[in-house]
C-alpha cells in the first residue's frame, strides 16, 4: 500500500524521459539532423566515458567553488536574517536593496567580477555567493515571519528571553522554509560556478565547456551538460536527505499521510 503510488508517480517522468531519448536517437539515426549539429546519444555517451577522468577533475574544481560559495552564503544569510528580524529598521533599509540585486543578471556581473578580482577562485565564489544569497535570506525571513504570534506570547509568558525565542522557537519553526530556499540555492550554486568559469580560469566544468565549444566537439559539450544537470539533481537530493534528518517530525507526518 505504501509504495505503489510513489512508484507509479515516478514511472511517468521516467517514461517521458525515455521517449525523449528515443526521439533524439531516431532523429540522429534517420539523418534528420546532421551529426555536427546534434550528436547521437551513443556518441555523447562515448564522449562522456572517454573524457571521464578529465570531467571528474573539472567537476571537483566546480564543486569546491560551489561548496565554499554556498556555505558562506548560508552563514551570511543566517546572520543577516537574524539581524533583520531583531531590528525592524535594518529590515526596512536592507531588504529592498537585496531585492534590487536580484534584478541584475548574473551573466552581466560576472565580467565585472573578473575585472575586479582576477581569474582565481575569488570571483567564482563571489558570484555563487551573490546568486545563492537572495533565496536563502528570503526563505529564512519568511520562516521567521510565519511563527505563530500566540506561541511567541506563550514563550514570553514563560519568561523566555529573546535569544531563547530565537533558538528554540523561530529557528526550528523556519527549517521547512529554509530548506526550500536551500534547494533552490544549491542548484544555483552549481550553475553559478559554471557561468563564472566561462569567463576564464584554470579548471572547472565551465572552463572545460568553453574549450570543447571552441574545438567544436559538440558530443563533449552535451556530455558536460548532462553531467552538470546530474550533479545538480544529486545535490538537491542530498538537501532533501539532509532535510529528512533535520526534521524527523515532518517525515513521520508524511508517512502517515501516505498511509491514509
Amino acid at each position, binding site marked *: 500500500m505504501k509504495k505503489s503510488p510513489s512508484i507509479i508517480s515516478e514511472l511517468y517522468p521516467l517514461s517521458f524521459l525515455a521517449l525523449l531519448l528515443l526521439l533524439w536517437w531516431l532523429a540522429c539515426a534517420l539523418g534528420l539532423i546532421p551529426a555536427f549539429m546534434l550528436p547521437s546519444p551513443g556518441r555523447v555517451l562515448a564522449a562522456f566515458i572517454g573524457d571521464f577522468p578529465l570531467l571528474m577533475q573539472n567537476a571537483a574544481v566546480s564543486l569546491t567553488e560551489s561548496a565554499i560559495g554556498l556555505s558562506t552564503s548560508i552563514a551570511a544569510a543566517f546572520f543577516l536574517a537574524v539581524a533583520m528580524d531583531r531590528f525592524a529598521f535594518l529590515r526596512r533599509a536592507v531588504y529592498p536593496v537585496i531585492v534590487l540585486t536580484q534584478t541584475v543578471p548574473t551573466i552581466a556581473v560576472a565580467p565585472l567580477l573578473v575585472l575586479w578580482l582576477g581569474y582565481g577562485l575569488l570571483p567564482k565564489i563571489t558570484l555563487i555567493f551573490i546568486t545563492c544569497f537572495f533565496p536563502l535570506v528570503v526563505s529564512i525571513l519568511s520562516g521567521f515571519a510565519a511563527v505563530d504570534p500566540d*506561541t511567541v506570547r506563550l514563550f*514570553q*509568558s*514563560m519568561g523566555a528571553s529573546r535569544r531563547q525565542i530565537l533558538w528554540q*522557537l523561530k529557528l526550528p519553526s523556519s527549517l521547512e522554509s529554509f530548506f526550500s530556499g536551500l534547494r533552490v540555492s544549491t542548484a544555483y550554486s552549481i550553475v553559478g560556478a559554471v557561468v563564472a568559469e566561462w569567463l576564464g580560469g584554470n579548471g572547472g566544468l565551465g572552463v572545460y565547456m568553453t574549450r570543447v565549444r571552441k574545438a567544436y566537439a559538440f558530443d563533449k559539450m552535451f556530455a558536460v551538460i548532462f553531467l552538470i544537470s546530474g550533479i545538480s539533481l544529486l545535490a538537491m537530493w542530498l538537501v532533501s536527505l539532509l532535510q529528512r534528518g533535520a526534521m524527523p517530525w515532518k517525515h*513521520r507526518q508524511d508517512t502517515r499521510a501516505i498511509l491514509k
Partner: protein
Amino acid sequence: MSVLQAEGLCKSYDGRCVVQDISLALERGELVSLLGVSGIGKTTLFNLLSGLECPDSGRVLLEGEDVTGRSGRVSYMQQKDLLLPFRTVLDNVCLPLRLAGAAKREAHRRAGELMEEFGLGGSERRYPSELSGGMRQRAALLRAYLFSERVMLLDEPFSALDAITKSSLHRWFQSVRKKHGTSSIFITHDIDEAIFLSDRVYIMSGAPGRITAELQIELPGERDEDISMSDAFIHYKKQILQEIRS
C-alpha cells in the same frame, strides 16, 4: 492572603476601554471561573494578570508581591494548545523547565513522573501531530502545570473539544486539581462547565467589560456526570443566566 489578587485593573486600546475597574481574588487551592460572552475582555484580563500586558491603572499581586506587567510568574494556557510540532510530547511538556535552565535529564525526570497521571504515558516520544485533540490539551495542561503549580490561568482550554472528550476531561481535571491543590482561574463561556468545575464564578458583562456578579458554587456530594441534572446545579444555572441577561 490570596494567592493572586487584582485591584482596579483598567485597560484601553486606541482610546477604547476594554476592561474597567476589575478587582478579583483567587484563594489557595481554589478554581474560579470567569464567565461571559465572547469579546467581553476576558482574554485581555488574562494578559494583564499574566503580565504580558501592563494595565493603564490598577495592580496585580502574586502572594502579596506586586507583579504588575511582569511576565513569567504565573502559568498561562491559551485556547490553542500551541504545542511545538518539532518537539516530541515529552520535550514539549518540558519546555518551561528547559527555559528556566533545567538540564534535559532533570526536566525529563520531573515531567516523566507526571506523564502517566496526565494520560500521556507511552506517548513521550511521539510528536503532537500524532496525538488526539484531548491528549494535546492534556499535554498543554501539563506544560502549564510544570511552569508553575502556584497559579494557572486557563483560557478556554477545553472549548475546541467534542462534548464527550470534554466531559471526560472535566472529571479528570477535577481529580488532578484536587490532588495537586493548584489554584486556577478558568475562562469559559460554557455555563455548565463553569458550574461543574468551579468553587466560585465571576460573571463579566457590559462594554467595557467589568465583573458584575460573584457566585459561590456549593454542590453536595461528588461532582460526576449526573450532577448536571441535580436541583442545585439547575438552580445555579438559572441564577447565572439571570445575571448575564440583566
